[in-house]
């Protein structure tokens, strides 16, 4: 008998008048001590399936028209809520995606873990404390004794996720449900957390249900993989077989949707579009009554670079490395020091009023297409705004023509221009954001993680679009990303950033094939092979 058997499960949501079937006839099986991965893109119903196990969906808006969930032979659907409560955090635990928000910011680490121990096991305070220390050691949190009283905000993202895992393990669950446990983390940390989960599973003999959108990461950790699309489980198999001989076309697409492209060839002949020398962005740290500056956060600490027409400079780094700050400083969206040469003149000293005409040639595309488009404006209004600012297109009809052309250029239907952002999918929104930048015919575009918020299959399309636009208009790109695979597909040259400094730089091929620094090596290993390497600080 399997530990968990989901049979023919359906999940239905009622929205005002309509109803939506999020999951159709999903069947899934987890044996004891097995790691099972449930893979699918956003909206595929994978999280909903997982949340149904502990019935954490918003009932009664959600319902299960059919199906059964057997846990250790016991039917969970429709079970009394007291029994469910005993299971939650007891025999079945969950780890969520966002370690920033799933810990209570007002409780110390010790208190959060103690709580579940006292609740489910009835331990007294002292015993709970020693068990907490044991757990935190097990998940590899450094200096455990010192950190017991730490608050969540004093820990890094990876450390927080370790605490979350410790909480989930507190009662030695039989089944751990990990819902995108590494998505919010940097690649190197991601590899460490996955390794930790694998090790813990071996030690404790529990089963893991790993939910993720990233087929790549499950390769090394899962025994069995279920692929989900539009609420259906389209394929499942033993991991090895699934990767070597995928049956369903969607699985094949997922496996092959690793980003690839032909980055522009390095050409020393073309002219330099933008160039910086010793660019610095320091944020003062203010303390005390008089708000005196006691120090600086050096977000960008003396970076020199140049980007040529038709070329892409990739900027790679983990969160907090200052790569986004660098991009925004280049466009003078945040104050900086050091020279910025654009089009033969130094734009650093110019007044905002004098920079404004240049903005037409300096554009930016942001990471999250959900937040970078104003929800209250139609696609036409969003794209038109730049035309109005720079006085392009005298009449309304002329501007509509312009907008239609640019929508077609980014691969969208021009007739959809009067729709609002929420009516578009994530990939389409990113195309609108690109159209907003491209309609001004810029010479230099900062691409700030333009593909990170998108599903893998959409990512590949956006990369293709960006490359073709670059070839057509001889654009200079600064491509910022934490995803090395995407950078390899886009950039001709790369700089690796860490804590505001350049760790290593060079032509893409050379840097990927023969990294010189340990940090670069660790990054590459984590990103490309999913391995956790140690590096010297």
């Amino acid at each position, binding site marked *: 008998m399997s530990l968990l058997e989901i049979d023919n499960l359906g999940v239905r949501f009622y929205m005002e008048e309509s109803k939506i079937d*999020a999951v159709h006839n999903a069947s899934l099986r987890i044996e004891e001590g097995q790691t099972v991965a449930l893979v699918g893109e956003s*909206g595929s119903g994978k999280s909903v399936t997982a949340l149904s196990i502990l019935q954490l969906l918003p009932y009664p808006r959600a319902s299960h028209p059919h199906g059964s969930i057997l846990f250790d032979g016991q039917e969970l659907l429709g079970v009394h809520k007291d029994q469910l409560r005993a299971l939650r955090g007891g025999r079945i635990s969950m780890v969520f995606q966002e370690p920033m928000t799933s810990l209570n910011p007002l409780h110390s680490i010790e208190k959060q873990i103690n709580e579940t121990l006292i609740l489910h096991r009835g331990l007294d305070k002292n015993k709970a404390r020693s068990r907490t220390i044991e757990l935190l050691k097990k998940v590899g949190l450094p200096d455990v004794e010192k950190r017991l009283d730490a608050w969540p905000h004093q820990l890094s993202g990876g450390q927080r996720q370790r605490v979350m895992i410790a909480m989930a393990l507190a009662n030695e669950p039989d089944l751990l449900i990990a819902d995108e446990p590494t998505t919010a983390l940097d690649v190197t940390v991601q590899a460490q957390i996955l390794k930790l989960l694998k090790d813990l599973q071996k030690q404790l003999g529990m089963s893991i249900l790993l939910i993720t959108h990233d087929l790549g990461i499950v390769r090394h950790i899962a025994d069995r993989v279920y692929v989900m699309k539009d609420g259906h489980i389209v394929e499942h198999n033993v991991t090895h077989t699934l990767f070597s001989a995928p049956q369903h076309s969607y699985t094949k697409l997922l496996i092959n949707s690793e980003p690839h492209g032909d980055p522009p060839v390095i050409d020393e002949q073309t002219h330099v579009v933008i160039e910086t020398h010793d660019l610095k962005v320091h944020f003062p740290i203010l303390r005390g009554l008089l708000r005196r500056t006691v120090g600086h956060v050096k977000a960008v600490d003396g970076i020199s670079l140049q980007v040529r027409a038709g070329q892409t400079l990739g900027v790679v780094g983990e969160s907090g490395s200052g790569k986004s700050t660098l991009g925004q400083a280049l466009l003078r969206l945040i104050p900086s020091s050091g020279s910025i040469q654009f089009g033969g003149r130094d734009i650093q000293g110019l007044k905002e009023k004098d920079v404004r005409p240049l903005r037409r040639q300096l554009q930016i595309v942001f990471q999250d297409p959900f937040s970078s488009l*104003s*929800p209250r404006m139609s696609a036409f209004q969003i794209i038109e705004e730049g035309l109005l*600012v720079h006085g392009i297109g005298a009449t309304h009809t002329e501007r509509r023509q312009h907008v239609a052309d640019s929508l077609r250029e980014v691969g969208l239907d021009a007739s959809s221009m009067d729709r609002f952002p929420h009516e578009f999918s994530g990939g389409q929104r990113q195309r609108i954001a690109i159209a907003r930048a491209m309609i001004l015919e810029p010479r230099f575009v900062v691409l700030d993680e333009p593909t990170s918020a998108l599903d893998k299959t959409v990512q590949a399309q956006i990369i293709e679009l960006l490359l073709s636009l670059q070839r057509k208009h001889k654009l200079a790109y600064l491509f910022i990303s934490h995803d090395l695979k995407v950078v390899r597909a886009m950039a001709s040259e790369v700089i690796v950033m860490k804590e505001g400094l350049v760790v290593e730089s060079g032509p893409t091929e050379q840097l990927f094939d023969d990294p010189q620094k340990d940090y670069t090596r660790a990054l590459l290993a984590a990103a490309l092979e999913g391995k956790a390497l140690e590096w010297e600080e």
Partner: protein
Amino acid sequence: MLNPMSKKKQLLNFSFSRLNQRRLASFYQNRRGYWSTWIFFTLFFCSLPAEFIANDRPLLIQYKNQLYYPVIFTYSETTFGGDFETEAEYRDPFVRELIEENGWIIWPPIPYHYDTVNYNLKQPAPSPPDGDNILGTDDQARDVAARLLYGYRISLLFGVLLTVCSTIVGMTAGAIQGYFGGWIDLLFQRFIEVWQGLPTLYLLIILASIVEPNFWWLLGLLLLFRWMDLVGVVRAEFLRARNFDFVKAARALGQSDAKIMWRHVLPNAMVSALTFMPFILTGSVGVLTSLDFLGFGLPPGSPSLGELLKQGKNNLQAPWLGFSAFFTLAIMLSLLVFMGEAVRDAFDSRKNFASSEDNA
């Protein structure tokens, strides 16, 4: 589209019209607030043409086959065959007789203006309610019902004007502070703290001894001290929104600050401002009433709820004065508060979107 993350995203980036529909529906579901709103606006719009409801001039006169509209136009007594060139005193039995000999008169439901002195009282003023003065008269023999009606209108008009003006000033101040931040924000905030510390009442008393306060003076003076209500919320919204990606994108397009604030940030701050407005209105009405009650408000003789309350206090033997003013105020302010609560709940996204019941 239904894993919880994407659902959340959908809701955060809502369909604007659908969100508004949801808000309307939520407002409608709050029966108390919904009916309060109806009653309040009905009363308000009824009080606007107060001259046609309570007046000492007839609505319509037919005299010698000709129609006259005394509420709108002024006619001299000679028009109706009287002796004086001055305006006709329609309440005068002599004039009335003159007209009725050759035609007829239609009076408004309450045949008194707020400043009409009723000289035909059967007992000394303040006289209790009777068929003639349905809510009695005050200590100067003026009809209480007429004064209430005019007082209600002036209170609300004053309140609405003060609310609108202080909202505009407050939002502008909050927007500038929040959007630019830094030193502007710091200095402005300190200034507001000092300004809030000024004893408003004493200043009003002092100013009242320099100028004779009328409606517009009072409006201006109160505006000086009451625009701060919204600054905090609007400032917070702007502080938050100025770092949104779409605001940054607009800056990268070269859009000017004023346009960015207007087109991109302001719509985000509107929700909190709208939520506050009914409560600001309640406060504004209350302030005018209390100033009138203390005698520092509208000039003597103006119809006002505060003044009526004061009369009620001074004439405890005439409880209809105090009761009328009290119930009018209590009902009006309660309606406003209920309305405000309904608006606030309708705009509360958490309440609107919260998963109905997690049985954990």
